[in-house]
């Protein structure tokens, strides 16, 4: 076997994460099997029907851009990337009579720990994202778009490039789409390992060929975006939701979910469950049902806690989580965020101090360094949690953590600072006793000097070498 053949034995086929048959009324993952990602397969699933309908090529009257935006607004579709901002409203912010290029950008820089839905979507149903982006281009009067794909899923980036070639050859992309007179060009580009580029203005900087440091907002991308031009940025799953809405109508989409929370949502369930994977279910599905789809807590253990919307969202204890339904409003009411729909499940054997230590290391590692409170504060948070976890905590450390978190929150250009501080606050709110117990133990037996912090994983390796 050559090296590539060796490696190909270990590649995921999507069976565990996507083709498990345990979605509920899926719209985006419907009918996928891993082999049917090509244009002809997508067309056989009614693909590009929404585009034809919109352009008046399916018998009915063509829609106007305003009608498309109104339909998306009425559907209650909210951004699937994390913020949950109403998509139709975002599209309506694009200036109408702008003389010059406007852009559509897709944020496929999926690096929020716990999130892996867009990877399967782009890998197994790329044309749905392409169709959604073309529709967005029409609605906002934009003639070009870019899909920025997480550098770590380079194979998926290559797959998307292939899908783009198919769409161009079939006349779905180009100067005169299907002879309608409407033109839209779409390209793929990739990141190369920077979590911060999932932040929309950092992503724009990265597309421009710079280091990905976020911009001040305002101005928002709708007025000053890519190359300083009006730009609409949405998450991959958001674009993929659009064709269904155009074909079936806003009301039908809304009825799938619950008021103010239209449609289906893909949840990436990871951690201590029997069957980790992506689960597409209607908005408002009870968390208990989602946990059941994922096979329940691993090894029959008890549920301890859940991080419901990616690593940046506040942790919720089991008893609160089990009362929640999976939608923006229910999770917000419980004190956390639905975020990107990344559900990290932890069982009753897990140490919250250890969990927070790894997350704090991540935020320190990925801080872009632009704002002092984040650049310095994330390091402080990690060093303090690290020493608590390694048996060198002090009584004053919990106040220190609170203090540092307070001094990061709301004092940075982008949300990474908040994202680093929020998990700390939530962990201390719900699991303070675990931190206190470790500190008390350390205070009682304080002898050896603190060895100094090490990158996560390195302490393990040091121990391994000396063993």
């Amino acid at each position: 076997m050559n090296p590539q053949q060796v490696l190909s034995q270990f590649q995921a086929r999507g069976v565990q994460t996507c083709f498990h048959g345990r979605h509920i009324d899926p719209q985006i993952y419907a009918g996928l099997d891993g082999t049917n990602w090509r244009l002809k397969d997508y067309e056989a699933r009614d693909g590009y029907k929404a585009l034809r309908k919109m352009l008046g090529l399916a018998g009915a009257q063509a829609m106007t851009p305003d009608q498309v935006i109104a339909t998306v607004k009425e559907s209650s579709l909210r951004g699937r990337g994390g913020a949950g901002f109403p998509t139709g409203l975002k599209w309506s912010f694009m200036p109408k009579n702008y003389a010059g290029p406007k852009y559509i950008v897709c944020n496929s820089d999926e690096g929020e720990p716990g999130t892996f839905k867009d990877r399967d979507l782009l890998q197994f149903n790329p044309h749905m994202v392409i169709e959604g982006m073309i529709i967005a281009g029409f609605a906002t009067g934009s003639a070009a778009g870019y899909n920025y794909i997480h550098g770590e899923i380079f194979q998926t980036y290559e797959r998307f490039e292939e899908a783009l070639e198919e769409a161009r050859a079939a006349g779905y992309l180009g100067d005169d789409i299907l002879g309608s007179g409407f033109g839209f060009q779409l390209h793929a580009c990739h990141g190369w390992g920077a979590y911060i580029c999932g932040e929309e203005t950092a992503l724009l900087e990265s597309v421009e060929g710079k280091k990905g440091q976020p911009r001040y907002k305002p101005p928002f991308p709708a007025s000053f975006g890519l190359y300083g031009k009006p730009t609409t940025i949405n998450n991959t799953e958001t674009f993929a939701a659009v064709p269904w809405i155009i074909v079936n109508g806003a009301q039908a989409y809304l009825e799938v979910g619950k008021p103010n929370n239209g449609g289906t949502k893909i949840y990436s369930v990871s951690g201590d469950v029997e069957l980790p994977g992506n689960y597409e279910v209607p908005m408002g599905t009870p968390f208990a049902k989602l946990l059941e789809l994922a096979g329940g807590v691993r090894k029959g253990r008890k549920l301890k806690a859940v991080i419901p919307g990616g690593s940046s969202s506040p942790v919720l204890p089991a008893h609160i989580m089990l009362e929640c339904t999976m939608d923006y409003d229910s999770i917000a009411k419980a004190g956390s965020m639905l975020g990107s729909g990344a559900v990290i499940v932890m069982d009753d054997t897990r140490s919250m101090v250890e969990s927070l230590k790894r997350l704090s290391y991540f935020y320190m590692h990925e801080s872009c360094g632009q704002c002092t409170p984040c650049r310095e504060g994330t390091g402080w948070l990690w060093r303090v949690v690290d020493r608590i976890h390694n048996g060198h905590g002090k009584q004053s450390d919990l106040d220190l953590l609170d203090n540092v978190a307070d001094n990061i929150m709301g004092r940075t250009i982008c949300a990474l600072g908040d994202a680093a501080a929020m998990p700390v606050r939530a962990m201390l709110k719900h699991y303070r006793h675990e931190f206190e117990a470790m500190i008390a133990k350390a205070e009682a037996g304080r002898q050896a000097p603190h060895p100094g912090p090490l990158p996560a994983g390195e302490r393990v390796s040091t121990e391994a070498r000396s063993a």
Partner: protein
Amino acid sequence: MNPPGTSPDRSHPLPAGEGRGEGISDATRALFAREVAKYPADQKQSAVMACLAILQKERGWISPETEKEVAEYLGMPPIAVHEVTTFYNMYNQKPVGKYKLNVCTNLPCQLRDGAKALRHLEHRLGIAMGETTRDGLFTLQQCECLGACADSPVMLVNDTTMCSFMSDDKLDQLIDGLKNAEQA
């Protein structure tokens, strides 16, 4: 001369020519042109990430000479290319082994044996995270979220190939398989 901190690590042998500024081939220029064509004519700089990734695949790492070549091709200052190389985690700023293994140890993977996989590879390869084996075959690194948390233990090989569900047995198979492929 290399600026401080970017001097190549000569602790393992480097195939002749690799990492040096040996000039961009016509085939590579064609790949570059395809990337540049995606962007408006006055925005060639947008292709810098892709061009660097292409050269990293060819040369194994991004040397200061490589940065200069990319800068010249795209008409941007070398320091602007260097800013990109140093900002994004996946650019190798010094030579790495023939196979760069990046194991995710972030929280969702930590809950599903990600750190255990890293430790297993450390034992198996006889190196610590961040190091390269003496034969220059393997570099082992810890990495942040690959966006494949359900596949944990999961690792990325040479920036492009994701390997999933890497139990200790599978890790051994992968290492043995690559070693055999090299000897064949």
